[in-house]
C-alpha cells in the first residue's frame, strides 16, 4: 500500500498546486483582458483545469483502493523494484531523497558561489566535491579530472565561443 499512499500524496500535491494557481497565480500574474482576442488567462486556465481534473480522478481512484479496498493490479500496488520488473522503460520507483540532496547540493552551491569566486577555483572545488559525493576515493584521478575538465571548458568557452566564463574574471 506504500505506493498507493505515495500516488495519493502526489495527486494531492498536484491538486493543491492547481487550486493555488487557479485562485492566485493565474489571476495575479496574467495581464488584463485587452478587449480583443482570447483572454491571456484562457490557455493557462484550461491547462490547470485539465491537470486538476486528472489529479482529482487519480486521487479518487487511489482513495477507493485504500479505503474501500477496491482491487488494483500488482503494477499499481507495488514498486517495480519490488516486483523484480526491470523490463519496463518507465523509470518509476522509490525516491531516494538522501542521494538526491547529496547530489544536488554541490550544484546549488556552485551556482551561488560562482557569483563571488572565480570560475577556476569554484569549478575545481565543485568537481572534487562532486566526485567525492558519487564515491570516488582515487584522489589523483579526481584531481586530474577536475583540472582537465575545468581547463578544457575554460578554453572552449573563452577562446572557442568567445563567451566570458561565469563569475569574477581572473584573466
Amino acid at each position, binding site marked *: 500500500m506504500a505506493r498507493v499512499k505515495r500516488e495519493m500524496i502526489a495527486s494531492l500535491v498536484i491538486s493543491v498546486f492547481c487550486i493555488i494557481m487557479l485562485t492566485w497565480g493565474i489571476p495575479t500574474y496574467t495581464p488584463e483582458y485587452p478587449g480583443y482576442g482570447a483572454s491571456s488567462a484562457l490557455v493557462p486556465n484550461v491547462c490547470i483545469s485539465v491537470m486538476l481534473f*486528472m489529479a482529482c480522478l487519480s486521487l479518487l481512484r487511489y482513495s477507493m483502493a485504500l479505503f474501500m479496498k477496491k482491487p488494483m493490479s500488482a503494477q499499481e500496488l507495488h514498486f517495480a523494484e519490488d516486483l523484480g520488473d526491470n523490463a519496463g522503460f518507465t523509470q518509476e520507483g522509490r525516491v531516494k531523497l538522501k542521494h538526491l540532496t547529496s547530489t544536488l547540493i554541490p550544484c546549488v552551491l556552485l551556482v551561488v558561489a560562482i557569483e563571488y569566486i572565480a570560475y577556476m577555483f569554484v569549478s575545481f572545488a565543485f568537481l572534487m566535491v562532486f566526485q567525492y559525493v558519487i564515491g570516488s576515493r582515487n584522489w589523483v584521478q579526481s584531481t586530474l579530472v577536475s583540472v582537465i575538465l575545468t581547463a578544457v571548458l575554460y578554453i572552449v568557452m573563452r577562446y572557442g565561443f568567445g563567451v566570458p566564463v561565469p563569475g569574477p574574471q581572473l584573466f
Partner: protein
Amino acid sequence: MEMIIAGLLDSLAPASLMFVFVGVAIGVLIGAIPGINGPMAIALFIPVTYYMSPLTAIGFLVGLNKGAFFGGAVSAVLLRTPGTPEAAATSWDGYPLTQQGKGEKALRMALYSSVAGDFVSTIVLIVIASPLAAIALFMGPAEIFALISLALTVIAGIGTNSIGRGLIAAGFGILVGLIGTEPVTALPRLTFDIYQLGGGLSLIPVAIGLLAFSEILLQLEKFTVKGGGTHVAHEFSSKLEDRMLPLKEFFASTKTLLRGSLIGIGVGAMPGLGAPVASFMSYDQAMKRSKHKEEFGKGRLEGIAASESANSAVVASSMIPLFVLGIPGNLAVAMLMGAFMIHGMQPGPLMFQENAQLMYGIYGSLIIASLFLLIIGRFGLRYFCKAVNIPAMILYPIVVFTCIMGSYLGKSDMFDVAVMLVFAFIGYFMRKFDYSYVAFLIGFILAPEWERALQQVVIISEFDTYMFFTRPVAMGLMILTFFVIARTFWKNIVDCRKTEAEEAAESAGQHKDD
C-alpha cells in the same frame, strides 16, 4: 531546380561536411555509452550550435541523432544493456552472437541494417515531405489548433503507463511554455515578478535539466561506489568468418531489411509511436515470417537486421510530421524542432517556401550523414566498442559539468543554470512518479504555437464558437482528439473491471481450497 542545386551544394561545403562528420562520430560514441541516448546528446550539444550557421547546426545535430541510434546497438550487442528502448530488440540476437565470439559480425550487421533503413527512410522523406507540405499550407489556424491538440493527446501516452499522468505532464509543459510575454498584450505573464522570466524560459536549460541531468541523477542511484564502472571483457573471435559479414549473408536478409524499413517509415511518420514500437513490430514480423523461427533470440542475424533497419528508419521519417505540419513526433525531433527555433526558423510547411535552399541543404546533410555513418561505423567499430568501458567515475563528472556549462552558454547567465537544476529536480520526480517528461517537453515546445493558433481562431471568428463546425478538417481532428481520450479512459475502465474479476475469481478459489 536552382534552389535544389544551391541547397545541395551548401551541404557539400567543407564546414558543413566537417560538422556532419563530427556529429555522427560523437553520436556513435555517445550512443555506445549505456545510459546516454540521442535526445540527451542533442540537448547537451544544442548550446554548441549557437555559434554555427543554421545548416551546419542542423546537419551536426541530425548527424548526432543518426549516430546515437546506431551507437545504442553497440551496448545492446556487447552488454545486453540497451541504452535506449529501441535497441532492446537488437540485444535479443546481438548478445548471443557476442557470447559466441561473433560480436563484431553482429555489430556489422547492425551497422549495415541501420544505414540501409536510414537511407531508404531519408529518400522517402525527401520525396514526400515537400508535396505534403504544399497540401498542409491550406490548413488555417483552426486546423493547426485542432492538430496540435490531437498531437498533444497522442503524445501524452508516451513514456508513461497512464494517459491521465501524461495529460497532467503535457498540461504542465504547456503552462511552463506560456511563461513570458503574452502574444496579444505583449505584457509579462506568469513571471511571478522574476525579471529573468520576462522573455520566457529557454528550451536549453529546461531540456538539459529534464533529459540529461535528471537521467544522471537516476543513474547515480544505481551506481555502486567502488571500482568505478563495470569493465566488460568482450572478446571478439579472431576467425575471419566470425568477424566479417559476407555480402551473401547480408543480402539473405534483404526482405527483412525492406520490411523493417517500411515499418520504421510508417511508424516514424505517425506522431507518438516512436522507434521502440517500430523495432519490436519489425522483429515480431521477421520472426513470424521466418522459416527458422526457433533461431530467433539465439543469435540470428535476421533479428538484428529487423530491429536496426526499423529503428533507424524512424530517424528520418519522424521528421515528416515536423516538416509537413510543424509537429514533433518524438523526443529527438522535438529537440531538433527546438534547434530550428533557436536558429530563427519555425518548422512547418512554410519552411519549404521561406527557407527552400536551407531545406534542400538539410536533405543533402541527411544523405551525407548516412554515408558518414557507414564510413565511421565500418572503420571505427572496434574503437567505439571501447566506449562501453569508460569508467563511470570519469563519465559522470564530465556529463554533469557539461550540463551546467551548456545551460550557461545560451545567455551567459547563471540564472539558466538554476533553471536547469530546478527542472532536473522536477524531471527526477516525474520519472520516479511515472509522469511523462516527453509529453511535458513537447507541450512546452508546442505551447506558443498552440496559443497563437487559438488566438487567431478567436480573432478571425469574432468569438464564434461554432467555427470548428464549419471547418470539416478541424472538426474531424477535434473529434479524433476526443475519441483518443475517450478510448483510453474506456480501456482503463475495462482493465480495472478485468482486475476486479480476476481478484474475485482468485479469492473464490482460495475459499474453495479452505
